[in-house]
């Protein structure tokens, strides 16, 4: 199917989200859409999928002009879409979700759901495209990557010829991304086309057949997949972007956050964080790496007062375990929650209001009783400019922002308070390369100012670029704390758990090498740090967790330089 968009224009208030966009998607191609946050990619795709009506312009399918007034029309025309925020019913099974809204699977005269046929259809489609899903599984029990697979199956079951994927990889692990790419290649081989939106340039280069770049609502050019990441970045943002984080080595200060024997159970009552101990120093970025769902979320929730825990976590000597979220925030925590839509933003609130969500009753913004609306508005306007949040004004509801701009609001809120401890989960999820450069710079500044920073990310490149030390979590335990120059393979091995022995073995091997290096080019810091580790760790961790931690600590500390 050949799909053409001609002169698509759409404005929201005074914002031209799309202005006269032309785009052609050939059969059997993977077409990448690149563009800054708020460039208009999602808007364009929502128009194509019938969720929005364009102010002007045409959609042409195989030479015929079509008008889509609802997604139903688009689906009939052979267009499928997987949204960045999934549209599955969590309490339904996979099969039930797949027949939702799909008329044909309604069997009997009274519109009964034909579950057996649905199940058969699911099996058939998943076998044909190599998308294994269990029709009986409940959506809420599935990892994100599998949920996404369900969304793709759903689109394919309705015979989609063109599949739109809006930032599908933002929530995927590298392995899941690789699997998704395999599926995309399979679709391409079957003559179907894919429109793929992402902010990750290496993905674009790996999979795209053609690249169209959009900036401020207009097409600014196209690029070859062979172009370098740098070229793509500057085409997209309109300036040169530094893709590497610049970070001077820095000697970490005193222990700021000391976690000992922390145990946290998840919603289902399983031990999600199992006896975790670590130290976070002032002026240090500790990255927590791991495959999604290995306890990182619960660890952060426990540290921010959002989830009950046992054990101890002291921030400058004050206990965080058992404290309320408010009490922890009062100690100066800046928190970027993992899921901006779920935990970060109040969609009806303006950007300005969202920016003070954790501070509205503090000095400049309000007191015991009243809000200072002027101060809130002024802060909103300032942050809008500082963080380059693309919106009509600070009064725009956060729900109307593009995904990346929503993320900028959440990050701005955490950073603006000059936090005494910054905990950021997936800080750059969904933001463009320009914004990523900025956010990374600000995080490093935070560290350089002597503040402790804890970063949780499933993005290995982000972790290695930002961290001074990397803690790898697997099944609720920290299986190792390693230096940032650890290779991705080794990190991958740790993240996959392997067997405990294997991980430890690799750790020990790791521990030897850097020390050797340190000896080779004599460095005072190495010696200065070592004794601290020895005197401090065994003394404080009388708990069983100590078995693994000292080894890990040692290797990391000595490799710091």
């Amino acid at each position, binding site marked *: 199917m050949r799909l053409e968009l001609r002169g698509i224009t759409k404005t929201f208030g005074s914002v031209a989200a799309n202005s006269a966009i032309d785009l052609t998607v050939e059969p059997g191609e993977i077409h990448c859409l690149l563009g800054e946050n708020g460039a208009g990619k999602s808007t364009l795709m929502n128009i194509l999928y019938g969720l*929005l009506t364009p102010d002007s312009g045409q959609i042409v399918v195989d030479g015929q002009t079509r008008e889509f007034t609802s997604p139903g029309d688009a689906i009939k025309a052979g267009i499928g879409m997987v949204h960045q925020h999934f549209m599955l019913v969590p309490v339904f099974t996979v099969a039930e979700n797949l027949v939702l809204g799909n008329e044909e699977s309604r069997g009997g005269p009274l519109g009964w759901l034909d579950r057996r046929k649905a199940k058969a259809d699911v099996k058939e489609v998943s076998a044909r495209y190599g998308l294994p899903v269990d029709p009986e599984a409940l959506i809420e029990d599935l990892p994100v990557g599998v949920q996404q697979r369900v969304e793709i199956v759903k689109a394919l079951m309705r015979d989609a010829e063109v599949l739109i994927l809006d930032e599908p990889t933002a929530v995927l692990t590298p392995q899941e991304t690789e699997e998704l790419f395999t599926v995309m290649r399979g679709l391409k081989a079957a003559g179907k086309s894919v429109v793929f939106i992402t902010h990750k340039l290496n993905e674009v280069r790996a999979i795209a057949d053609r690249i169209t770049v959009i900036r401020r609502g207009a097409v600014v050019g196209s690029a070859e997949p062979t172009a370098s990441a740098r070229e793509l970045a500057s085409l997209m943002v309109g300036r040169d972007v530094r893709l590497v984080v610049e970070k001077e080595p820095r000697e970490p200060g005193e222990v700021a956050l000391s976690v000992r024997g922390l145990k946290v159970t998840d919603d289902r009552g399983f031990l999600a964080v199992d006896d975790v101990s670590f130290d976070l120093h002032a002026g240090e970025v500790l990255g927590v790496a791991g495959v999604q769902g290995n306890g990182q979320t619960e660890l952060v929730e426990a540290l921010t007062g959002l989830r009950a825990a046992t054990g101890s976590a002291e921030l400058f000597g004050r206990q965080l375990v058992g404290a*309320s979220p408010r009490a922890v925030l009062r100690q100066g925590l800046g928190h970027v929650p993992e899921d901006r839509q779920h935990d970060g933003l109040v*969609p009806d609130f303006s950007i300005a209001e969202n920016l003070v969500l954790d501070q509205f009753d503090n000095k400049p913004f309000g007191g015991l009783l009243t809000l200072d609306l002027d101060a809130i508005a002024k802060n909103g306007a300032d942050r809008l400019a500082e963080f380059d949040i693309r919106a009509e004004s600070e009064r725009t509801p956060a729900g109307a922002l593009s995904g990346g701009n929503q993320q900028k609001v959440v990050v701005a809120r955490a950073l603006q308070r000059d936090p005494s401890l910054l905990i950021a989960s997936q800080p750059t999820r969904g933001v463009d390369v320009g914004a990523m450069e900025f956010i990374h710079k600000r995080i490093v500044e935070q560290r350089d100012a002597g503040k402790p920073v804890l970063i949780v990310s499933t993005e290995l490149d982000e972790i290695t670029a930002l961290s001074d030390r990397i803690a790898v979590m697997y099944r609720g335990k920290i299986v190792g704390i390693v230096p940032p120059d650890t290779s991705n393979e080794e990190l991958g091995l740790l993240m996959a758990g392997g067997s405990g022995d294997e991980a430890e073995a690799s750790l020990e091997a790791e521990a030897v090498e850097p020390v050797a290096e340190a000896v080779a080019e004599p460095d005072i810091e190495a010696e200065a740090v070592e004794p601290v580790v020895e005197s401090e760790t065994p003394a404080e961790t009388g708990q069983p967790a100590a078995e693994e931690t000292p080894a890990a600590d040692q290797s990391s500390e000595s490799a710091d330089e």
Partner: protein
Amino acid sequence: MSDRLKRILAGIGSANTVTVTVLAFVLSVVIGGVLMILSDQHLLSQWGYFFQHPTDALSGSWDKVANGYTAMFHGAVYDPHAKQALRPIENTVVDATPLVFAGLAVALPFRAGLFNIGGQSQLIIGAVCATWVGFTVSAPMPLHVLLVVIAGMIGGALVGGLTGLLKARFGAHEVISSIMLNNIALGVLAWLIKTKAFHDPNRQDAISKPVKDTALLPAIHGSSPELNFSTVLAILAVLLVWWVMSRSTLGFRLRALGSNPDAARTAGISVSRNQVYAMLLAGALMGLVAVTQISGTLSASHAMTTTLDNGIGFTGITVALLGRGKPVGVALAALLFGALDAGGVAMEAATTPTVPHDVVTVVQAVIVVFVAAPKLVQEIFRLRDVRRGDIKGSGTGAAPSVAPATAVDSAAEAV
């Protein structure tokens, strides 16, 4: 300037809240007219021979509907033939006053994501407290009234707060616990009224002692039912709730909670504590309804009866819905309902053959149905979609309820 004008015009043509509400009213007036015709046997028979003499049926129906609505207008707003031409609007305001409190008592917790269906119990316990203070305490006039007002508010707040507490502490859904509390309150009232402490020894029926004259709300104008001080309280309540919701930190918390409790919690806003606050305030407002009933001039006896709640607790829900949860909207909706009530009574009296007051009840219900189903109004009048939040609305599963709310905000901010 012209840009602004254009935007306002575009707003009117789209399915925003104000337009939908106005059109819902128009539709329900039409339906009310049809009902008036259907309620008249004579007219129906004229429709029977419509094809022989179409004018009979048409002009008869027109007269019927026109007379009915004219009588209503005369009863609710302005009657040029009456001695006191503005007396009707006073009636409307008197009828609207308790509805303002009741509407606010539903609207405020609604913004915080709570459905206050327990107005009946809050009202009843508020009335018990107010009445007791009203006939036992001896105090000079302004002080006694003040004590009664405070007692009513405390009584209501206790019940409201209890609902909030049950939810916050034990996760009991507020609708379920409210229904229980409503029943309990009815039982308590029926029992209390017969106890020695409350029952009026001079009466055989179930009625409490009347409150003392010093406990009566001072009149502002007119005679029974007169405009009294409760209307001033209602205006103050509207202003206060408006201020709380839009200017205070408490309102900020409540709104955040209502829109995304997870994000609110993550940002350090205590969900349970603020739910209790919202219900305390709601209960206090319902308690004020009780005060208007006991110490106002609405019930001539100034005493508690078993039917004292008069369904106002539930009417509050419809008023809040019609007022879109905004204080000023609630006041306007209460006025409309008050006018329909006052007008309905007048219409019943002034028309022959009688147009039953029930037509008004149906009109009220129909407005609410249309307001609650904006898509229906949008279809009937072929309005454009609201501009903002439309994708995000259909996008995430939970959002559809959010989209209208956003529209409300922008519309009401303009008010």
